[in-house]
């Protein structure tokens, strides 16, 4: 826990800052609004954390989200499928795309940056094809997942996101699979020399990433009550930012899912706080950019101090 102390402090200071400026900011409805809008970014940040720990990157997550969302919408509206059926198909779709990028990257020995950049374009194209470039309105059948429930007033998708964060953190820290992911990111040659074949791990981590995109798609589709083929353009950058703020290294070998989740919270609080003040768009972007760099700097200082 002490590992994330400085991050939590930054988050608290941010909340404090906005609450002092606007007393209405720190209220249950605002916290609910934040809680309701973070699940999609949370799933993507978890996906990026796992991929980045192995030393790779997945730029396709935003487009895969749009593709998976389109699959859900079209399957439900045009084919009359139930939500669970449609979600299952989109899970398979996401995993398949992950399998494709993972296989090409690992076996073809091409940097994941390029392969996932290609997937970013392809998946977006397929999303437009599937939906005929139209927003597919679904309605309350899926929208209910984003509504507050009796349990602490949080939505089902928020709870799902929390469960996935916990599971992914356990996977990373408490399982052999997770340790191998870290080892691959730290020193690939050492892993090979110790007689472990890294290929299945490298491929599967992209499949996990693709699957998480389907979860993210479910949350966004629920929040909009529709499938939007234009959804999540550039969201991969926010997910990378969240992971980096949370202390995940772009070089691989180091990272934490909990840290990334706090990174998501920092981004969301910042966004909502600035919106509650009606700050103009250019200023918003300048502040957001500065906070990302500052948070990464704080993390860098912290690790340096720990080593010293």
């Amino acid at each position: 826990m002490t590992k994330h102390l400085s991050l939590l402090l930054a988050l608290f200071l941010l909340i404090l800052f906005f609450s002092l400026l606007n007393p209405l900011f720190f209220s249950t409805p605002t916290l609910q609004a934040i809680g309701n809008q973070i699940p999609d970014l949370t799933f993507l940040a978890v996906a990026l954390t796992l991929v980045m720990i192995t030393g790779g990157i997945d730029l396709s997550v935003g487009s895969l989200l749009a593709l998976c969302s389109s699959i859900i919408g079209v399957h439900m509206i045009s084919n009359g499928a139930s939500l669970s059926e449609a979600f299952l198909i989109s899970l398979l779709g996401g995993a398949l795309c992950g399998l494709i990028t993972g296989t090409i990257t690992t076996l073809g020995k091409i940097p994941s940056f390029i392969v996932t950049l290609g997937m970013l374009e392809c998946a977006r194209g397929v999303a437009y094809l599937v939906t005929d470039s139209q927003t597919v309105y679904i309605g309350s059948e899926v929208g209910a997942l984003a509504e507050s429930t009796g349990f602490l007033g949080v939505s089902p998708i928020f709870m799902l996101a929390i469960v996935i964060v916990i599971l992914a953190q356990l996977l990373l820290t408490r399982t052999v699979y997770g340790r191998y992911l870290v080892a691959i990111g730290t020193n690939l040659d050492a892993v090979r020399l110790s007689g472990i074949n890294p290929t299945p791990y490298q491929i599967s981590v992209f499949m996990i990433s693709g699957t998480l995109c389907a979860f993210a798609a479910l949350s966004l589709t629920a929040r909009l009550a529709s499938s939007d083929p234009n959804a999540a353009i550039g969201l991969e950058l926010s997910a990378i930012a969240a992971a980096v703020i949370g202390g995940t290294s772009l070089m691989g070998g180091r990272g934490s899912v909990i840290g990334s989740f706090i990174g998501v919270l920092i981004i969301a609080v910042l966004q909502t706080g600035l919106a509650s003040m009606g700050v103009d768009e250019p200023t918003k972007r300048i502040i957001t950019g500065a906070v990302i760099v500052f948070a990464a700097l704080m993390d860098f200082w912290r690790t340096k101090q720990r080593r010293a």
Partner: protein
Amino acid sequence: MYWTDALALLKKAFSLLIALFLFSCSNSSDSEQGVRIALVMKSLANEFFATMAKGAEEHQQKTPGRYELIVNGIKDERDLSRQVAIVDEMVALRVDAIVIAPADSKALIPALKKAKAAGIVVVNIDNKLDQELLAEEQVKIPFVGPNNLTGAQRVGAVLADNLSPGDQVLMLEGTRTSFNAQQRAKGFELAMKESAIEIVDSQSANWEMREANIITASMLTRYPDIKGILAGNDSMAMGALAAVKTIGKLGAIQIVGFDNISAVNQAIAAGEILATADQHADKLAAYGIDYALALLADEKAILADRETPVDLITAKDI
């Protein structure tokens, strides 16, 4: 040493936060100092919406103290999820009214329905919400804005007057999911039909200059006999103009747009673009705010749509 310090600080921050929470909870009822109106826009990087926001701010400053204005936009025209999030956040902040230019005619309806259920007055400007879906969801949201269909028809007629029957033109549509893109396309089509001019191809450039430029360039090589271009907004008209200039056909191909942004205004004065339509962007949001204020003053008012003027702009108007 470092960690114990940080821990102590964290504890302090936390207790302060709890105190603040209790304070804001107990204080929530008497925080109504004045009327607060949230203006939720599309991309403020688009001059049209920036003008609209500026007009709203001027409207607010004219009568200081009458209401408080919170303006928010999204990073580009298609960032739907962020716009829905902004609506949720404004509901959470308990504003009195939301005046919105929706990025999508359908997907914003659930969020706005929630806002209305929370007792917030909602007024729709610029891009009209899907009337069928509103009826289905049993929500009534009045629309304040121009008639895009007749506006586009008038702009199209100017182009038709400069061409002869049988000529070929192409059309650049806005994002097809939005109602005003559909209405402008319909208006253009009607005007072309009246003068027997053929629309050989029509594609969506998502309201954007760069996309319009690429699409126009490829369409011009495919259809070399094109005499005119109908652009659903001025950004796309500018993109088309650049493509026409690149192949040296300036003057041989006539372009019309919609919105009357300053760049197009200059292009019309220079004779590079034929016509556009002015929807008085600076007043659009202000009309919406006025309507919201009227609805706040009279809870029993009937929610009716209000049409705002659209003026045709050609070289002789500048």
